[in-house]
């Protein structure tokens, strides 16, 4: 029967897709996702997909049989059955699904009845029962691994994550000319970098200092009055460490040094512009 054909390719595809994924750049994401549980999860998911596949296949076969014109049904079914008997997969599948032929249904009809509802005495589908056992075994292993064995607690996992990230960051920073700090920062005048500074400013700073730097919750950045100094080093330092007591937060974990340099330069470039709604001057005239 022709419609059966695609099912033969289904199983290889099931194995191939994750296989291919793990050989591609996507793998990085998946390894991060599964880390040491990867193997376990893969087994479990593959198994469950197989079960789902069985259920779907079963449903489709039944629907297909039901939807076929009546005259053709008997003949084709007979044909299909012959074919199915020949297929190893089909035999294996029927056994796993534990399906009794419909014709033998009378033999397993239980003798009780509730408001016309009868019940069959079908045995538990083997795949269902074994699936259940496997989850129980998984549960035992899981508890053992995490609470007696070497599994990491949430906090240990976190510490490892932080340590690894810090190492990776240091390695990256060593490679980059990113090591700008308040001692060596210089004013940037390159248009591209100022545009970058503006972008960062709008995302992070505008909420308190207004889009045009006129101030609001935070002070006006366009006038000549400064609370903490107007040199590039001063502005860089304020961005980096914040002035917690006055509500300016520290941005060093959110904006990298080079970007802080850009945004500090952008802020100084606002000097002398005319905002829509300037806030009254604060600090000293410089």
């Amino acid at each position, binding site marked *: 029967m022709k419609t059966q054909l695609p099912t033969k390719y289904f199983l290889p595809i099931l194995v191939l897709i994750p296989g291919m994924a793990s050989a591609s750049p996507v793998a990085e994401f998946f390894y991060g*996702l*599964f880390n040491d549980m990867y193997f376990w*999860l893969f087994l479990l998911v593959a198994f*469950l997909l197989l079960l789902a596949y069985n*259920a779907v296949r079963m*449903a489709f076969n*039944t*629907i297909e*049989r*039901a939807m076929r014109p009546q005259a053709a049904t008997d003949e084709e079914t007979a044909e299909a059955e012959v074919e199915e008997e020949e297929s190893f997969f089909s035999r294996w599948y029927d056994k796993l699904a534990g399906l009794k032929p*419909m014709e033998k*249904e009378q033999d397993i*009809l*239980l003798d*009780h009845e*509730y*408001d*016309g*509802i*009868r*019940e*069959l*005495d*079908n*045995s*538990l589908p083997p795949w*269902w029962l074994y*699936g*259940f056992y496997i*989850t129980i075994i*998984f*549960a035992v292993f*899981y508890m053992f691994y*995490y*609470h007696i064995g070497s599994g990491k607690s*949430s906090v240990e*996992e*976190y510490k490892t*994550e*932080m340590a690894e990230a*810090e190492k*990776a960051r240091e390695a*990256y*920073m060593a490679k*980059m000319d990113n090591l700008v700090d308040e001692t060596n920062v210089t004013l940037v005048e390159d248009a591209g970098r100022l545009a970058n500074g503006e972008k960062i400013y709008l*995302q*992070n700073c*505008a*909420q*308190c200092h207004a889009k045009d730097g006129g101030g*609001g*919750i935070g002070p006006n950045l366009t006038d000549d009055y400064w609370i903490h100094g107007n040199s590039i080093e001063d502005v860089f330092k304020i961005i980096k460490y914040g002035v917690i007591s006055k*509500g300016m*937060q520290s941005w060093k*974990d*959110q*904006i*990298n040094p080079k*970007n802080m340099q850009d945004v500090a330069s952008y802020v100084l470039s606002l000097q002398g512009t005319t905002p829509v709604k300037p*806030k009254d001057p604060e600090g000293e005239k410089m």
Partner: protein
Amino acid sequence: MEMQKFSYNNTIVRNFLFAGLIFGLVGMLVGLLVALQLIFPGLSFDLSILGYGRIRALHTNAVIFAFVGNAMFAGIYYSLQRLLKTRLASDFLTNFHFWGWQLIIVAAVITLPLGYTSSKEYAELEWPIDIAIALVWVAFGVNMFWTILRRRERHLYVAIWFYIATFVTVAVLHIVNNIEIPVHFMKSYSAYSGVKDALVQWWYGHNAVAFFLTTPILGLMYYFLPKAANRPIYSYKLSIIHFWALIFIYIWAGPHHLLYTALPDWAQSLGVVFSIMLIFPSWGGMLNGLLTLRGAWDKVKESAVLKFFVVAVTAYGMATFEGPMLSLKNVNAIAHYTDWIPAHVHIGTLGWNGFLIFGMTYWLIPRMYRTKLYSEKLANTHFWIGTLGIVFWALPMYVSGFTQSLMWKQFNPDGTLMYSNFLETVTQLMPMYALRAIGGALYIIGLGFMAVNLIRTIAGGSFEAEESAEAPALAPKYTKHKGEHWHRWIERRPTQLMIGSIIVILIGGIVEIVPTMMVDSNIPKIESVKPYTALELEGRDIYIREGCNACHTQMVRPFRSETVRYGEYSKAGEFVYDFPFLWGSKRTGPDLHRVGGKYPHSWHYQHMWEPTYTSDGSIMPRYPWLFNHDGKVNELNTKYTRKKLEVMRGLGVPYTDTEIENAVSDLMAQAQEIADELNADPDITVSPNEEIIAMIAYLQRLGTDIKVKTEVAQK
């Protein structure tokens, strides 16, 4: 044997069913409104009673307890009478149950928009309504059990096992989770704090899904599906094992809502493994439903009822596979707090609950009205448009959930967050939210088709209020069949069945909750954590009233992406004075546990007045009713402040006599300080009595107690 004549009460079935459908429509419309508010925050119209946090709770309560609740009572009362061949035992209890339940719903519709809430999800209603729920629920249980005792059928069918388990478990869950100490008629504090409260709440919340939205609906499936398909149940053995396994395992799985939180690891792990073990017991129900349709698939093509059932059971199968997968810690790390979770939930509610109820309704109404359905075609249209609605609801939210999570976790190689401004991860989702609202609207349109169809059907029929029936009385003595299944023993002993269910469902809860309550090492003490001041406590109650926890979590998980964004991860000991806990379950907005001290007071002031002022593109609604504005005077109510501190002390918060004595004057002093600081800003004029001051006081306190500790240590 002599036949006894009696009748079935159809009136109560009709009443519950109509109440369910009408409240269902209302509840879904409220759902659509909250969905639209996420795209157009102005749809709260600056009215407190339409605040997102308040009416989201109205939506969830309405669809769970009013829609599914009423419809499930209709289905239970219809099937119970017929499966037991007897009329409902007490007309008084039946009517008390109906009117009591509707009154509770009306009370919810009034109190939730007014901001009377305990803040615990799906248990938001305040204590007087909680007591009413307990009474009405017990009336339902007594009525059901009394009916069972008067049965003319020796054995209880599997549907009734599920009904019994539903009754006992919901009673236990509701009572334990709602133990609260009243402050006044519409205000109370949970008896548990922080980690303990979270555990009890999610033991309840998870099992409200299990025993309010699952077990009774499985019972309905076991009656209505074989009736509609005219096929025998596939496997009696499967019914037995999946019933007992399901109710035993389900109760343990609650902690999977709290993975990577401050809940002790051992409890989290139990939540994980029991969720995994839940797959096959859940699928047992799906299999018994789908395989019962073996040999009836040709009917599915024709019958809208069966189509609804097939999709319902399939949605159940999908949701109960997805749930355990979401319970694996590494999947949960991605999905939790994102839109993935509402997508998962709505597969269950729209697909499983909604579609099963629609199928049942299309089957029941023509029978009770002794006529044929007005239009099978219209019912089929309802089916297709409803299915489309589910797809449009869920798919965008899966995409949205993934997008959100990946953006939250994305780092630049220099160790800074790629999307350090939370708002970027919100504005990104707007198209998905719009598609979701369309999905919801389609689902509601389907409901409109059903209304037309039912009204025309009813117009063409005549209602049979009392359906006459006859059956022989139960023989006083029962002789066992030869070779009968061992489980038949308990099926003819309802009391033993009920006691058995209680024992089975209590085990998981006891093993998880009792040690968390009793063993101190589960919640390591932090010396620097101090009780809230009177003003902060009042602010916290405003936070609860407005339902801020609907969109903001207060739980920084131990992930690099969270500690860099928010600050130090949350510790169990920080929540010991949080009655109730406010960890939340969804991050539509950013986490707030470390927001204290992050911004100046004026930032919060401006932000609550007009969120887009500080955060361009924010979808948070405005909260003008916390301010004096447009001639309307807003004043913090301090009438109960002292009482609140006293109740807290009763719960174990170490307030001193002086603190309680001077509660109001201390509150005013702190409010004055904050107001002075705010008034220093030329843009702001605020009086210390305004509620916004208390709110700011609370927000500025959040998560700061352990910062104090580190500062002191540095000195």
